[in-house]
């Protein structure tokens, strides 16, 4: 092993300690802060990714009401589409070029927030290595993300924004690295927090996300508190975590357990110090996760955090079958969960400092397989927050005609906006400087605009 690698590893290990260990704040420092119950910092900012696993059928989330786009939509998707009369009509600042658009009827809250200028829509986003046209697609001259239309590969591409190569880090992880390298933040708790287990999106060179369950932080049982037996167990338990195992797999197991224990007490203490949220959340998985995110944001002041990225997941979007019943239910749950989350952010008075956005494996085919849709490529996405220039669409609405200029075939649409552009706009708002952008999004310069303009400065 080379010296610089050794140094890097040593550095990483120190960072891992810092990221979640006691770090700069001793126990007394935490207690002082709890007593103050500090609100989130005035310059606090957070991104919340809601990943729609399975590939959301975005062409039913946002669909044309009239004009040429509606005519194309009706031809491409003769049934299973949303009828023009059902759609909740939008009046964006910039009128779409080929007819009016509306949101799915199960999205009344998001429709209202769009009208209030809190929600922006970004059409036809997907992973790209470089801009692709139907001509370069058909001529096979375009450089394409490998394994197009595969769930885990396109999810990987979305989350890494590096479809051109197998990447071990994701854009949120690299954004966190950049914020630390730039000196924007000097946090001693992981900037990335996942409510949905491990994910590459939040993995950076400096480490991966801190994982929290929807019900909160899990503390170790049976080894703390009074009692000599507990003390003895804790001593032995700690000793076995501290010893250097011969197997690197066992060392990894020890590291995770150590991180978990060190972080749990601090985060749980901060959570316990918060007053309960008045906002009620629906009893769905995604809503419970967002509720915990709201509580963690509430505790960010006590934990001394100025930047955070949260990852929330919602499954079930792979609607190959029974789409007519399943997809509206999913959208209804999403609408209710995002609505409750918005209300909680308003209650905490952080709604201008938190931006929520969607990601998904891919959009789906415009065409139908009988009772569902199959894997596509580009899809529409939502950005919600007080820092969002809402009430408008950013990017290019695709032509919905089969064999049209945006179609590869069967209504698998070529993205007109790269994930890199969508994500870079969010990362810049979070505080990644233009100088750091190439480190976070190495392919960004291949696309026309680095910032789609949907975030206020």
């Amino acid at each position, binding site marked *: 092993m080379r010296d610089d690698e050794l140094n890097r590893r040593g550095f990483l290990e120190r960072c891992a300690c810092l990221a979640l260990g006691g770090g700069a704040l001793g126990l007394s420092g935490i207690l002082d802060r709890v007593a103050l119950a500090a609100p989130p910092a005035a310059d606090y900012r957070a991104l919340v990714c809601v990943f729609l*696993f399975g590939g959301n059928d975005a062409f039913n989330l946002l669909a044309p009401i009239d004009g040429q786009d509606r005519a194309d939509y009706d031809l491409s998707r003769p049934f299973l589409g949303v009828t023009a009369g059902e759609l909740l009509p939008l009046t964006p600042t910039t009128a779409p070029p080929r007819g009016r658009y509306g949101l799915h009827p199960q999205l009344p809250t998001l429709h209202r927030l769009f009208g209030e200028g809190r929600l922006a829509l970004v059409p036809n986003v997907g992973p790209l290595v470089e801009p692709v046209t139907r001509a370069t697609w058909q001529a096979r001259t375009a450089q394409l993300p490998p*394994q197009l239309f595969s769930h885990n590969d396109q999810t990987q591409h979305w989350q890494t924004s590096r479809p051109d190569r197998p990447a071990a880090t994701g854009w949120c992880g690299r954004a966190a690295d950049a914020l630390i390298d730039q000196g924007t933040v000097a946090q001693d708790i992981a900037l990335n927090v996942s409510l949905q287990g491990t994910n590459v999106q939040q993995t950076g060179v400096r480490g991966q996300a801190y994982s929290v369950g929807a019900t909160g932080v899990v503390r170790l049982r049976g080894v703390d508190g009074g009692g000599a037996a507990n003390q003895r167990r804790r001593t032995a338990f700690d000793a076995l975590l501290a010893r250097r195992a011969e197997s690197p797999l066992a060392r990894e197991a020890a590291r995770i357990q150590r991180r978990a224990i060190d972080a749990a007490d601090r985060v749980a203490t901060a959570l316990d110090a918060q007053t309960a949220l008045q906002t009620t959340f629906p009893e769905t998985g995604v809503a419970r996760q967002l509720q915990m995110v709201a509580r963690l944001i509430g505790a960010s002041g006590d934990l001394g955090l100025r930047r955070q990225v949260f990852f929330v997941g919602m499954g079930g979007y792979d609607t190959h079958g029974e789409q007519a019943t399943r997809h509206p239910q999913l959208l209804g749950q999403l609408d209710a969960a995002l609505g409750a989350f918005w209300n909680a952010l308003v209650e905490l008075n952080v709604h201008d400092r938190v931006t929520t956005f969607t990601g998904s494996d891919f959009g789906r085919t415009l065409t139908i397989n009988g009772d569902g849709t199959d894997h596509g490529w580009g899809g529409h996405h939502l950005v919600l927050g007080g820092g969002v220039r809402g009430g408008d669409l950013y990017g290019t609405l695709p032509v919905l005609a089969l064999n049209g200029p945006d179609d590869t075939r069967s209504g698998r649409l070529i993205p007109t906006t790269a994930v890199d552009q969508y994500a870079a706009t969010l990362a810049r708002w979070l505080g990644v400087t233009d100088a750091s952008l190439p480190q976070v999004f190495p392919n960004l310069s291949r696309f026309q605009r680095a910032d789609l303009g949907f975030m206020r400065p």
Partner: protein
Amino acid sequence: MRFDPDFSRARRRALSRALAGLAPSLAVGLAPGLLAAGCGGGGGGSGGAVAPVITASAAAHLLTQATFGPTPEELERVQLLGEAAWVDEQLALPATSHLEHLDAYGQGQDPASGLRVDTWWHMAMRAPDQLRQRVAFALSQLFVVSEVEITGAQATRGLANYYDVLARGAFGPYRRLLEDVTLSPVMGVYLSHVKNERADAARNVRPDENYAREVMQLFSIGLVELGFDGVPRRDGAGQTIPTYDQATVEGFAQVFTGWTYAGARSWSNAPRNLLEPMISFQQWHDTSEKRLLGGRVLPAGRTAEQDLADALDVLAQHPNTGPFVCRHLIQRLVTSNPGPDYMRRVVQAWEDDGRGQRGNLGAVVRAILLDPEARRAPDLQPAEWGKVREPLLRVSALWRAFGAQPVVGRYGYQNPERELAQAPLRAPSVFNFFRPNHRPPGELSDLGLDAPETQLATETTTTATTNRFYTLVHERWDGVPRSLGPDEVILSLAPLRPLAGDPEALVDRVGLLLLGGRRMPPDMRQTVLDLVRATPLTDDGTQRALEAIWIVVTSPEFAVQR
């Protein structure tokens, strides 16, 4: 004692003769007196006709790879038979049925889904066909279906039956199992090829691509071309080579049309049947020409059965399928990072089972377990050898090691995913609980080591799992001073209590039963001994036994099998 195939084979023959006249229970009954040596003993060959042919730790090593965990009884059986004879004995055992056991709970037509998980625990704990059940569990993570998206009428019985399909086919030809899986109505619902219709240009409808894509990506050939050693092949530019493209997916999607539930009177009158294989309706099958892999074209105008048979042949014969499936099974049973030599030897067994048959899963399993690399003693393995234990298998290993018994016959642990992030047939998606090439950032990525199971290991699940072990050990043992709930599983400490006055013997016994044949590292052993000795011996030995078990099952060493 090192594994010596020739020696072992000779001993096995002698043993088989010796054991031939003994009923299994009698053979096991004889054993304790002969095998009291435990860890490190045995194998001397100076005993009588029925003497151990391998050490207890070698037996524990095999049982950790091939079962849901060593039990004292099974350890003795392996010691008596030797590894190869034990594996062969297991290969010959018929499948124990999950569905029959589930139905025996007597919960009527639609048993609660938790009883299926309860049944799974029962099989992990008690089924005699341990190897078959363990391989079925591995196959359930290859041919993934998930209760997460299969609910409603018959779902629980259908899923139990699906598991039986995997168990029955676990040692048979891959090609047959692939067909059974393809025509399983549970898979038909999960990947939506039940009632999949031929293309209808007038309505702009094309066949559902779900099963077509995943059967290639996840159940047979994978995304990129592989060498015999399972390593992706590369073209002149150093790029991996895709095995198929979207057009191939569309070709296979045409194949999987025209199938619906058994008992259907017509295409539109097909009530749900999640138990019997799907049947075809030719008029809904796409009869146009189909372009499959490697230039293979199925001509137009054939039946659903003909197209299916040929398409599955194409997948089963593909050069990728051997390395792809073999690597999956090796990763689930033995090690996360099989070297090229080990892979090649196992793939050789896939290519030809010795009788000219290809894809014989029993021969593959035998090759995986009896390979010299797999049988090399854990303490002699390279540091990176082995795997993180799957969370469910940690719990089963604890229970089996200490003769755990349910209070009234049910195991009660029906939603283990809440702590362990894993439960049988409840993966979050067809991509299973974890990906075969997952690498956590940090040391393992730097070393280039795959560690699939670590994808489940977050701060939350790790501590929740540790806490669950606190409950399963410290709060569930024979004689615990409180009234027991009906669904609790109780550890039997009886064999350990007499050892409490001899901490070294106690710790070594616990280590033998839990550490998969590894010698407990000296510094760890010292820590465990210190804890045991510091625990006052003021009771019948219970407390010391509990402390020893708890500290080992929560240790990083137990989290890994070597």
